[in-house]
């Protein structure tokens, strides 16, 4: 499911911009003004009143500063104090998604409902097709008994007037692994063990109630208040995230204060080489199929939710891993910051000692705005290491499998299949493949539909960004021809 941009996630960008602005202005001295700035007195409120809007904003701002709302021990603690606390922090806390309980609207439990459009017809297919006899006629109209209903949706399908609707719980519907559930008050909670950090709930909540702990302030602080070298590792999905030439974006990152910028597409080339070798080896050993492993949300899902597929999952490391490894070999004392479209990368980074911080494109965008860096005015700068066409194509669905295919061509039989978007249905499909086998022998799994280019940390429209990535791919050389 592709989640459109809306006011709730647009507000997230504004919040990040405000945090950056406040950092530069006076290191959060006046941070308590931000909720008022964003929701002034004469503004139409989005919830019951502007005061509730501001209260929710305070929690969202806390998350942007790197705290989770449910860590709150002292309600009176001000944003200024949280800001100061964030600046003192040496290591960022474990990343996680969480729900702001006062912002969660406690949507009614997912159910089917008969609307006023019901005409109480003679055919009554809803009654006839309900497998649980949950539908009866009350006052000349169809009525669903909630205790008997099993939410199969047959009545909705057969109603000739489209009079029956499904009332979903958007976050629960978006979560591919059922990690978000209601408590006894109807408020949603995320089970950290089950969560794969894909960020789909955060994107889908219409009340902006789900937040993620950001590492933005930590990185700003390192750039400006330490003598350590801070290096940005740019994920290949960066192409198309800003309407400027890539080398100008690199220049802009340097202007922001990053000491160096490296391209993760170069690490992707190592992933391709190793994954191709692994594929050939596995196929020659008689394996049925292999799946990719570079999508961290999928990788985590295989650990927790689809253990049966683990023997088929590639052991090759991700482009981020190889890029960070190369970087730390060259500059062991630097601070490495992965910049990408992905929230699950934060989780991966926790297990990778070479990756110190993870930011999203949205957070980098907010840094540009808050620090008043206009990309168009920045000096273009080139990457030291040139990436191949295949490495550049990683962020598009089909890109990873395509890169492996390119390298194994003529060596072994190669039958690719894409799983474009991790949904509840696709998880079932993967389980089936693991137990019953499948036609293809190379399965690429991407959690975000369309590939990383449609990740929750992206700024650009996926459609436009895809075109830009494609043109960048065309300018690259084939990996086979590079040496």
């Amino acid at each position, binding site marked *: 499911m592709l989640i459109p941009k809306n006011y709730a996630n647009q507000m997230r*960008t504004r919040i990040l911009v405000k945090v950056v602005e406040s950092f530069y202005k006076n290191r959060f001295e006046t941070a308590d003004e931000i909720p008022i700035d964003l929701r002034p007195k004469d503004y139409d409120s989005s919830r019951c009143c502007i005061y509730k809007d501001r209260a929710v904003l305070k929690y969202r701002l806390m998350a942007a500063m790197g705290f989770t709302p449910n860590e709150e021990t002292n309600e009176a603690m001000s944003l200024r104090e949280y800001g100061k606390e964030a600046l003192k922090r040496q290591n960022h806390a474990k990343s996680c998604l969480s729900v702001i309980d006062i912002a969660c609207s406690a949507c009614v439990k997912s159910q089917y409902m008969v609307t006023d459009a019901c005409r109480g017809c003679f055919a009554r297919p809803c009654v006839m097709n309900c497998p649980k006899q949950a539908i009866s006629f009350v006052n000349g109209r169809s009525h669903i008994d909630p205790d008997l209903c099993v939410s199969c949706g047959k009545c909705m399908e057969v109603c000739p007037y489209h009079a029956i609707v499904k009332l979903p719980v958007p976050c629960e519907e978006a979560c591919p692994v059922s990690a978000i559930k209601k408590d006894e008050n109807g408020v949603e909670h995320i089970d950290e063990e089950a969560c794969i950090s894909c960020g789909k709930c955060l994107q889908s909540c219409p009340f902006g109630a789900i937040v993620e702990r950001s590492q933005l302030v930590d990185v700003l602080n390192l750039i400006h208040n330490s003598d350590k070298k801070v290096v940005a590792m740019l994920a290949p999905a960066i192409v198309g995230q800003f309407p400027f030439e890539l080398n100008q974006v690199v220049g802009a990152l340097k202007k922001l204060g990053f000491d160096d910028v490296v391209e993760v597409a170069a690490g992707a080339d190592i992933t391709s080489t190793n994954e191709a070798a692994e594929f050939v080896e596995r196929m020659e050993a008689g394996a049925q199929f292999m799946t990719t492993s570079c999508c961290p949300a999928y990788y985590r899902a295989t650990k927790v939710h689809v253990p049966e597929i683990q023997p088929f999952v590639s052991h090759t490391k991700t482009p981020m891993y190889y890029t960070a490894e190369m970087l730390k070999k060259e500059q062991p004392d630097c601070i490495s910051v992965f910049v990408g479209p992905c929230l699950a990368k934060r989780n991966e980074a926790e297990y990778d000692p070479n990756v110190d911080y993870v930011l999203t494109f949205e957070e980098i965008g907010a840094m540009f*705005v808050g620090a008043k860096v206009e*990309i168009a005015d920045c000096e273009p700068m080139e990457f030291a290491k040139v990436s191949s066409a295949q490495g550049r194509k990683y962020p598009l669905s089909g890109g990873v499998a395509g890169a492996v295919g390119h390298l194994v061509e003529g060596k072994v039989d190669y039958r690719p299949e894409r799983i474009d978007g991790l949904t509840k249905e696709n998880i079932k499909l993967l389980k089936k493949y693991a137990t019953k086998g499948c036609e293809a022998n190379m399965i690429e799994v991407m959690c975000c539909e369309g590939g990383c280019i449609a990740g929750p940390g992206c700024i*650009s*429209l996926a*459609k436009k960004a895809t075109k830009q990535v494609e043109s960048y791919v065309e300018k690259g050389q084939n990996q086979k021809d590079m040496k």
Partner: protein
Amino acid sequence: MEKIEVKICAGTACFVMGAPQIQALEFSAPEDIADRIEIVEVRCMNHCNKGSGYNKGPFVEVNGELIEEATMEKVVAKIRELIAKEDEENC
């Protein structure tokens, strides 16, 4: 008939603040306005250096009329308003 010019600012600030969502007009404009508009992507129009600055972004100009904190909804409403005016003058 002259097309209505929709200038979408694609300077860094406007882009980050939400201009891409308005760029979607290129692919998915409502039918009644799709043929009547011309979308122009422009570099910073300098509105962010005046008044309350980039916080009022993204900025869009529809036939020269400025829309602050532009959203698809606001821009489409403005376009419809101008089309209605034009059609009235033409009859």
